[in-house]
């Protein structure tokens, strides 16, 4: 029968916490000692594979209960030993929003998904309803309440995942890159929601993020992790603090005026595409020329991925025409890298398009920051490593039309820098590149032209970055301008 949890709100504490996974030589966490006071906000950042997600999962009790690992040291959540407590019991006090929203949804409708947690807590039905309505409102997805979860976009799923945890009303909220799939406006809304939650309810927040500037109004304590350790920790209130901590670094930019945009590699003329009666793209005309990089930005659900699929020939428009230049070789990087990995080892994956000498393979792996992983099973790699593998495999084919769908998600700064270098090299070789990304700062630094795709009725604009950003500023869409995110 239902019983009350009786949980208080004690602080989070780790002491000498080390975690080692069975298939890895190096520990994922090394003797981490820290504590978090009730109501405190902690922003956790650091390069890919530094242990951020492991820390979050250990805190929620998933490690070692659901993910086998050797764990040493102590983890206490609200006074309970997280190592010895079932995650379902810990869930009364701590909620973890995981990185991949798509992998968290376990029911078929939005309302049921949000109600799932409160129902497990045996709350009265009126309270379940109240919490569902509140969570829907907080993340701004009231309009999705009756939708089937399988029909949601990536951004909508991310908001749903956050709402489903908020409905549990945990005292401690851990969010693992909660805005990685969200458009800038959606990301801002989530950061505003977190700020609101913290002010109104004094919840303890631990947020794993690469973009720290939006968290500054909450005066977070920043933990910078590297190699399984917290290497830097300090309270942060100003953008200057981030600069001092080395967390604000400019991106390599495309060479000014060096664009040698040539013939169109692909052209769209008055394209109309709808899905289930809902117009996704309407009356869109566009040419992508060889030797140029076109950035595509816009809100979730505005048709950015659909545009890439049309350009790649994976979809057909209901109206309009698409022309591709003769002999165009298409390279498309999907959002989820595991869907385009086929072979048993990293080396064989790279050799699908032809064999490689040892030195070629070594250079390729080193370039993609995958050195030493040639014989590893690709699907055992981290998401970030898989994405770099698929990028390297795609570039190996020397595509003349390079289509990239959110390639920077889950990549740290060093890896992003490698990706930028690869994209610029392809541009120099004459590839026509279309880059879809929510990272407006990167798109601004990297692209020759930008296409802003608005949602239905909002319209779209295409042109030089300065022209598009001016238009967006005038239209009040400042979240889609680089200065809004300049310190991230």
């Amino acid at each position, binding site marked *: 029968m239902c019983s009350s949890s009786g949980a208080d709100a004690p602080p989070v504490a780790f002491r000498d916490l080390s975690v080692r996974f069975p298939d890895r030589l190096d520990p994922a966490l090394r003797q981490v000692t820290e504590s978090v006071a009730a109501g405190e906000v902690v922003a956790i950042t650091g390069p890919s594979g530094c242990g951020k997600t492991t820390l979050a999962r250990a805190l929620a009790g998933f490690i070692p209960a659901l993910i086998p690992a050797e764990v040493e040291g102590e983890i206490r959540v609200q006074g309970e030993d997280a190592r010895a407590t079932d995650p*379902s019991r810990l*869930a*009364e006090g701590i909620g973890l929003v995981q990185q991949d929203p798509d992998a968290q949804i376990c029911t078929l409708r939005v309302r049921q998904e949000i109600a799932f947690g409160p129902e497990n*807590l045996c709350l009265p039905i009126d309270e*379940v309803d109240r919490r569902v309505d509140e969570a829907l409102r907080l993340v701004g997805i009231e309009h999705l309440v009756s939708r089937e979860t399988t029909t949601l976009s990536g951004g909508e799923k991310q908001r749903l995942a956050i709402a489903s945890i908020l409905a549990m009303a945990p005292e401690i909220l851990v969010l693992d890159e909660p805005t990685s799939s969200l458009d800038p406006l959606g990301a801002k809304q989530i950061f505003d929601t977190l700020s609101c939650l913290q002010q109104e309810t004094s919840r303890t927040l631990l947020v794993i993020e690469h973009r720290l500037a939006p968290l500054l109004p909450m005066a977070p304590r920043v933990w910078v992790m590297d190699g399984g350790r917290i290497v830097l920790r300090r309270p942060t209130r100003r953008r200057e603090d981030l600069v001092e901590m080395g967390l604000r670094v400019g991106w390599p930019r495309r060479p000014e005026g060096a664009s040698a945009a040539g013939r169109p590699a692909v052209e769209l003329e008055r394209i109309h595409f709808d899905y289930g009666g809902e117009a996704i793209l309407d009356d869109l005309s566009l040419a992508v020329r060889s030797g140029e990089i076109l950035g595509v930005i816009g809100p979730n659900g505005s048709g950015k991925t659909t545009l890439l699929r049309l350009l790649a020939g994976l979809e057909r428009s209901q109206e309009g025409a698409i022309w591709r230049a003769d002999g165009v070789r*298409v390279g498309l990087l999907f959002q989820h890298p595991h869907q385009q990995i*086929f072979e048993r080892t990293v080396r064989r994956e790279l050799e699908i398009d032809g064999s490689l000498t040892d030195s070629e393979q070594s250079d390729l792996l080193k370039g993609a920051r995958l050195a030493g992983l040639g014989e590893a099973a690709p699907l055992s790699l981290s998401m970030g490593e898989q994405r770099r593998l698929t990028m390297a495999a795609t570039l190996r084919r020397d595509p003349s039309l390079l289509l990239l769908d959110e390639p920077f998600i889950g990549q740290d700064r060093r890896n992003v820098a490698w990706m930028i270098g690869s994209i610029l090299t392809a541009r120099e070789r004459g590839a026509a590149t279309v880059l879809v990304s929510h990272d407006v700062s990167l798109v601004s630094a990297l692209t020759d032209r930008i296409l802003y795709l608005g949602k239905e009725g909002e319209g779209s604009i295409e042109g030089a970055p300065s022209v598009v950003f001016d238009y967006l500023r005038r239209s009040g869409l400042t979240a889609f301008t680089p200065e809004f995110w300049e310190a991230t």
Partner: protein
Amino acid sequence: MKALSERRGKLTGLRGIGVEGNLLLLAGFLAVGLVSPSLWLKGAVLCIVLLLLSRSGGPKQQAVQGPIGLKFVFVFAFILFIAQALSVREGSLLFHVGVPITSGGLRAGGAMALRFLLILTSSFLFVTVTDPDRLAHSLIRWGIPYRFGYAFVLSLRFVPFFRNELRIVREAQQIRGIRTSVRSLSRIRRAVRFTFIPVLVSGLMRVDSIAMSMKGRAFGLHRTRTSPRFVKLGAADLLAAVSFGVLVALVALSRKGSWP
């Protein structure tokens, strides 16, 4: 639950019937398919099921039928009919097509094909018109442990997932210039490795993360969980119950050889 009753109110046809009503209808259709010896009754009920199925379209129907769809079911039923017709030699001889075709063979083939079709199509119909979440809650209300109820919901959650993954993997092959075929054993092995393994791995990864997601939302913490408000039975449910009674009566009559 507020939203549930609102949604129920907007539904029409079989979707407007509650889970219990739909289960009764399914039981009635299955009784005809499995118990009744009458080919006429089986054929008539199959027509009714197909009519209902054609009027209950929607994304869920596509998700359940998957890429194969009912066409495969009909082809397979036809093969069953032919196999029985060719192999059963009872009854009077009707004609020769290399082998003797008898009235008993045609009857046995018809019975088997109709039984197969009724079971499959009525099951399709049930899954198409029944909200899995409502079904799970009904199962739980009847005393089935909620873990089993949610196991059912999750299995349905994976149907569209696998279909979507398969489509994307095939698109990725197309973009990468990978061609798979089944013309030789080695090509079949390659097709399996390049198609089913990525899909399977995706599925296994998804199972792990969903298990974490459920545990992370207190699934299994208590022996029971909050149930949605009971939705009152309506006229449509009554009609379903009456239909069930009629079907059972027809099955009983056909068993006695009285009618039809």
